[in-house]
């Protein structure tokens, strides 16, 4: 197909299209017609091609000459389609040829298989393009790897935080338990002993036994005097 001598785009559009009298169009209810020139169509095609190329090839850094050749090849294909007839072309023709651009973060599946057109595989230019493509592919893989690593790290950190929170709660539970146990230990079995028993009395074996006994006796006597004074005061106000 590339050996064909293709007519101009205008000639192709004239041949591919059909001529209708204005009266027929009016009878059909068509009151207005949008007229496009060959240059406008060509420009639209070039814009569409550039966008598609950009989306498909991502951040590939292709030489201008390669890009120009890709455009020429696309235009040739476009004209070839027109020359072969547009019967098979659906009304949404432009969108079926151009696949929806992938999301910027997702590398295009076509990326590794886009061949530089009309380039000798043994030529230095071909090698340069291959190197660039390899480099860009590597960058894409690395970005994905880092993204995956970041996601995995985040997941681990979340897991660690959850574990640390659980440990904190367990520590609190242990401390509360310790306090309760300590308090229970403080409440000796005879703490609130029946009246008549005093198991909390001073331990005679304690080195402070005598000193404490004296102090407690003195304290008791001071309080008894206080009551006697109070009683005396009540009797003699």
């Amino acid at each position: 197909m590339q050996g064909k001598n293709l007519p101009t785009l205008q000639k192709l559009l004239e041949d591919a299209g059909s001529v209708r009298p204005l009266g027929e169009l009016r009878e059909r209810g068509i009151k207005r017609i949008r007229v496009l020139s060959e240059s406008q169509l060509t420009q639209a095609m070039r814009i569409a091609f550039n966008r598609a190329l950009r989306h498909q090839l991502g951040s590939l850094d292709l030489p201008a000459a390669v890009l120009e050749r890709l455009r020429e090849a696309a235009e040739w294909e476009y004209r070839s389609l027109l020359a072969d007839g547009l019967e098979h072309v659906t009304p949404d023709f432009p969108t079926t040829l151009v696949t929806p651009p992938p999301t910027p973060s997702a590398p295009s599946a076509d990326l590794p298989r886009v061949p530089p057109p009309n380039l000798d595989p043994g030529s230095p230019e071909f090698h340069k393009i291959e190197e660039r493509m390899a480099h860009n592919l590597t960058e894409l893989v690395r970005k994905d790897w880092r993204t995956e690593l970041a996601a995995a790290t985040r997941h681990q950190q979340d897991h660690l935080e959850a574990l640390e929170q659980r440990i904190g709660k367990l520590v609190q539970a242990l401390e509360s338990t310790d306090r309760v146990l300590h308090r229970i230990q403080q409440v000796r079995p005879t703490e609130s002993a029946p009246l008549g028993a005093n198991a909390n009395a001073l331990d005679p074996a304690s080195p402070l036994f005598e000193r404490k006994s004296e102090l407690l006796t003195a304290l008791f006597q001071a309080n008894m005097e206080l009551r006697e004074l109070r009683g005396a005061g009540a009797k003699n106000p």
Partner: protein
Amino acid sequence: MIHKQDPELSTLPAGSGEALRHRSVEVERGVLLIGVDLGTSRAAISTSNGVRECVSSVVGWPKDRVAQKVLGEQPLFGDRALEHRLSLDLIHPLRDGNLAFPRLQGEDRDRARRAAVALMRHLLQLSRPRQDMVIQAVIGAPSKATKEDKQAILEVAREAGFDRILVVSEPFSVAYGIEVLDEAIIIDIGAGTIDLCRLHGTLPEAEDEITIFKAGNFVDQELARLIALRHPKAQFTLNMVKKAKERFSGVVESSDRAIVTFPVQGKPTPLDITEEIHQAVGLLIPEILEAIQQLVATFDPEFQHRIRANVIVSGGGSQIYGLRRALEEGMGVIGGGTVRIVDEPVFAGANGALKLAREMPRDYWQSLQ
């Protein structure tokens, strides 16, 4: 056996053990021992059934029927009373460490007495006694409490439902709790008073005790004065100043700044009161040092070095940052000394009183009925 639920068990987090969740503290019929520290600002209790509570020494009754409807007819206590103070008649039953009513007349006396009984009753309720228990309490009084002050405590406690009561000097109570009974000086820094007590193996006598009537409340007033001087348009209450002091007294001699937010003409405004706190809190140091020197100077000269080496500080005011160092430096003029702060300074008095209650012989308790 009668089972009694430990209040803390119900708050244990899930997974702490089913056995503990459902276990109860077994309390036999008999006696409940309570140690009470009645302070001008805060009252603390420590009981033989494991209760330890500290409440602000304030009682409030609803002002009118509307307040009664909202808050109920019963008086409110502590922080709850302070929170609703606009709807309450607030009464502080303690002043300068003692019950206030003996020094009042007429209606003021009656109201203060009623508040004192209500507060004591509230403290008893906090102890969670069973109905059949005999309540035996040791209650701390300031060093220089008179016999009338101590009798007032007996009277109020009896009316509140305590069965057997012992009144003891508060600093002595602290000393007994930490088993320091000889050759020491105890300094109890409260809101109304700073009580110093010299221990030499016997029950302290009048000459062994000094009370300084400049304490936490004095610092609050002085701090308020200094703040008003520097920020004349700032709006604040003594309660706000007190909270700021308690929060920031630790910044004294540290590099942190004490920044509070007080309204200035209605607009919340950050104010730096670091210098004011430093000044106000520092006013206590010379007073304490003077009292220490007096107690040391009037002690047996052969043993003065021993009590200088054993100065112990307790009470809420002991938390002032740098206090220990300031006192030790100040004691340099009398030959130096060693100062330490007790563990749990807020409960030191109540804990010591509980220990006294536990070790008091049974016969003595029975005689006190």
